[in-house]
Structures are given as C-alpha cells and as structure tokens.
C-alpha cells in the first residue's frame, strides 16, 4: 500500500524527515511513534500527498504522489492533527460537503452520512453546531468524515492527543473496529499505550530518523527487559541512591523523579535493594513498555 524509501523533507537547512524507509501492507495497522517534532506529521503529510518530498522515493497505492496527488488522495482518509471541520456548518453538513470533494453524488452521501454518524456515535448530534461538540466528539466526527469515501488507507495524525481518558477509549474502540474490518491504518502517536493497542507494527522515530522497527512486543523484547522496577527516593536523593544501586538489574535509568531498574524479575531486585538497607518512598514493578524502548534508544522520554 505504501512504500517509502529514504524519504527526506528539508526546510532550508533543517531536515524534518531525514531518510525514512518503511512499507505498509494491505490491512496492516502501522504506527509512527516518537516525541513532538520527530518528523511524524511531516511524514504523514507526504504520505497524504499534500506535501512534496525533497528526496527519496514514495509510492502510495502504487502511485507517485508528486504526479498523482488527487488520484491518491481520492483513496485516502485523513485525520489531521488539528481538526479542520467547518465550524460554520452543522455536524451532518460537514460530512456531506466533504463527500462532495470526492465527486460523490448526494444520493450516495445522504445514507452514508447517517451510517457514519451512527458509527461515530453522533447520530443525535447530526444537526448540532460543530462548535458545541466536545473535543472527543469533534475527533470522532473528523474520523467519520475521513471514512466518507471508504478509503483504502486511513491516516491518523495523533488521533487522541488532548482527549480525556474516556474519550480516548471510545476512539480506540472505533479504530479497533475499522482495523477488524480490514482498513489499513497508519497512525502517529506519542502515547506508547496507544501504539501498543492499535499498531501491528511500528517504527520509532526521533529527529527525522528511524530508531527501531518491529511489532510492539518484539521491540520491547529486543530493547528492554521483561519487567521494570520503578523506585523513588525523593528528587534530592535519587542520584545518590543510584550510585549505591549500581550493579542491580540489567540496566539503570536515572530520571529526575525516579529510578528505573530493568530486570527479568522486578520483585527480586526490590528485595535486593531492601537488603542493601535502602528504603525507597515508593516502588512499583511493571512490565516493560514502548516508553522504555524509546528511553533506551534516545535517552529521552516521549513526553518532555
């Protein structure tokens, strides 16, 4: 569906995307994970055939976006980072107007709009003003709008950023349904739980480059331990405690507010620490996540 080879986007001297290569297969759910400014959105705009690449090659549905922009875009659904619904129009009107851009007749659009409102759980809001919707509802409407042409690929740029947990879960549920229906999803996120929930495969991006690629599970297996022990000694004491902890676990990561100890068995390491006569204020044993992978690869946390 998508083949990117050494994709580059430069703005004057700054390379927002600096040689990214990846492929997306039909029906796959593919993610770009990385912090803000990693080049995820720029990559998405190039894949969405609205931003011209400055280097490398890119094929979307077998077509080069430089030459076949409209042909490609007519088969995509796009959920941009910033909602661009028409706030001057009503909810259902937004779907109708957007569908017209694909050359779709009203006879198709009217029932389709109702069906999508149902899917987005917005049927009772059909005549509401867009301004009156909550953030989560706007997001669902944007997704519904992106589905009006039954796209072969759905592009989602930070679909749940800025939403409260409940709204995020509703959205994930809707996206999961699409995935089950066989829609190819490409999404960017800086939430590792989102990536774990929705992506079959992902690339970790930082500073315009790919740091790692694989399934969420394989990335964790490759770049992190099975478990993580988090201990806090209070911000002033973490660094000093860390010196004494040297040698415990496979690896240590000292963050300003806590120390992460990577190990196959977190509980055993905690017992070990207590034997040393150290008493953390709080301790927590959890499974490794993509956050840990990212920390390992870049030395930075995802949300800074």
């Amino acid at each position, binding site marked *: 569906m998508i083949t990117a080879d050494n994709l580059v986007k430069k703005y004057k001297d700054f390379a927002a995307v600096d040689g990214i290569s990846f492929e997306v297969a039909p029906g796959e759910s593919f993610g770009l994970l990385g912090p803000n400014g990693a080049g995820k959105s720029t990559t998405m705009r190039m894949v969405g055939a609205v931003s011209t690449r400055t280097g490398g090659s890119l094929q979307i549905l077998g077509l080069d976006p430089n030459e076949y922009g409209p042909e490609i875009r007519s*088969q995509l659904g796009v959920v941009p980072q910033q909602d661009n619904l028409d706030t001057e129009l009503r909810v259902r009107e937004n779907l109708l107007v957007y569908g017209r851009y694909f050359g779709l007749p009203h006879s198709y659009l009217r029932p389709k709009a109702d069906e999508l409102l149902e899917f987005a759980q917005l049927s009772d809001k059909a005549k509401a003003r867009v301004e009156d919707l909550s953030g989560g509802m706007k997001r669902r409407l944007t997704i519904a709008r992106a589905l009006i042409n039954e796209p072969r690929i759905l592009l989602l740029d930070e679909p749940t950023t800025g939403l409260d947990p409940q709204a995020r879960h509703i959205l994930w549920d809707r996206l999961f349904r699409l995935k089950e229906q*066989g829609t190819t999803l490409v999404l960017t996120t800086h939430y590792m739980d989102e990536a774990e929930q929705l992506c079959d495969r992902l690339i970790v991006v930082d500073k315009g480059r790919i740091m790692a690629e694989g399934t969420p599970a394989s990335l964790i297996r490759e770049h992190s331990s099975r478990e993580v022990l988090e201990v806090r000694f209070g911000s002033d004491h973490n660094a000093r405690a860390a010196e004494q902890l040297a040698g415990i676990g496979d690896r240590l990561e000292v963050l300003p507010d806590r120390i992460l100890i990577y190990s196959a068995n977190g509980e055993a390491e905690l017992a070990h620490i207590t034997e040393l006569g150290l008493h953390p204020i709080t301790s927590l044993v959890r499974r490794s996540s993509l956050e840990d992978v990212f920390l390992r690869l870049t030395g930075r946390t995802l949300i800074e």
Partner: protein
Amino acid sequence: MSASSQLGGSSSRRPEPVEGSRPAELAEAPATKPLRYGAWYVAEHRFRNMRAYTQTILATSIGNPLLYLYALGVGLATLVDPGLGAGEVSYLTFVAPALLASAAVTVATEEFTYPVMLGFKWNPVFFGMNAAPIAPRQIVDGIIISVTIRMVVTTIIYYLFMLLFGAVPSAMGILTILTATLTGLGAGALIMAYACSIREDKGQFAMLMRFIVLPMTLFSGTFFPLESLPIYLHWIGWISPLWHGAELSRVFAYGMEEPIWLTVTHIGYLVVLFVWGWLAARRITARRLNK
C-alpha cells in the same frame, strides 16, 4: 505508464472489505470527477456557508440599491448641478452605473477577505479540501466562482432597481451587469491574493478598507466626474479599478461618449488586474498548503 493502468495494477491486491464496498464512482476512476469539477465543489461549499448569512445578503442586495438610488438620485440630485461634467443626462443616470459597479466591489471586498483568511487560519477548511482530492488552484477557482455568482445576483437586483428608478436610458444598459461584475473581479482578485498571504490577523483588512478601498471609491469618479478633481488627483482614478469599471458601465448605461481606445483600455485594465490577482492567489495558496 498511465495513471489508470497503475491503478488497475494495484487494485488487484486490495483486501476484500468486510462491509460495504467502495462507491462505484471511486472504484472505477478515482479523482476523475474532482479533477474536472473540484472548483465547483468548493463553490458549493461556499454557498452552504453563505446560507448562514442569507438574510444579510438579501437585506444588502435589496436595501443598498433602494437606499443609494433614492438618496443620491432623488435626494442629492436636487442639489447637484446636472451639467457638472455629466453632460446631458440627469445626476441619477450619471451616478447609477457607478453605484452598480461599486456594489459589486463591495461584495468582492466582503467575500475575498475574511472568508479567505478564515479558510487558512481560524476555520482551516482549505487544508481539509486539499487533503481530499481538491488541488489548491481549484480552491481559489471555486471561491472566485462563488463570489462571481453572488456578484451577478447582486448586480441583477441592483439593475432591476435602476430600471425601476428610470436610471437606464440605453438598451445596452443590461451589459452593465457584466461590466460591474468584471469591476468586482478586477478589484477583488488582488484583494484575494493579499488575503491568501496573511498569516497573522493584525487588522489588515480594516486598513485596506480605510486607506485603499474607501479613498478609491471617493476619488474614482463615482459621485462626481474625475475631471472635476484637481489634475494631481486624477492618478487615483486611473489606477482604480472602480473608475475604469464606472466609466465602462456609463458607456453602456447611457452611451457616455469617450474614445473607443479608452473603452478598450477599461476592459483590458480590469481583465489584467483580475488575471494577475487570480494567478497570484493560486500560487500563494499552492505554496501555503504544501507545507
């Protein structure tokens, strides 16, 4: 390799959708219709937006001619010397074609300013259109189509009032609907190009109205002939699309006498301004949407 053969090749690998199927319009020939009619879809969208202020549009379309023609043609005319450069015709006949052109310019300044800036910034629908198959140039074309239609409707209503007031002696007067619309386009396209380029709203449009549009209206031979102004102010008229449009409209409305080369110049000047602004707007929009 042509687009269609490439598309045909990739469609064989398409996964079977579980429910529903792609609309036939898209499955057969993606983007054929948007490539052809994209600008009209944009215009359609604009008309939907205009519905929100239909009442304002109607009120101004009917109120303006009524008010201006009555106040100037019937009221002010009693004070104005009809011989003042206007030749043999009444003041109402003299002023009406210019008012008509001015009405089209008013529509242009309304529709080519805030709605355009909004589409890029506060209600960034242009980015949405562009993410769909619509090309940047089609967005510009679509807005121009919608504004042109609104100008034609406005000027038709205006013209009917002019007939009602007996302000159009010549049968050729019907052509003023076209000349007025051309005036609106000549003045509006550059304004649109400017609106496309605005990234921060610092009240530029208010300045534009106050320091460019209003002086041009006052010194463009709208209410009195340009010749009655001191010679050193005539240049304002010469560069003003409204002066060219007003003079052109007078030629058709009551057969105002002027050399044929000047009439051709009026048309040429307005066409050049329009094409210049139109192409600039297309270029700026394409650059701005391709981030």
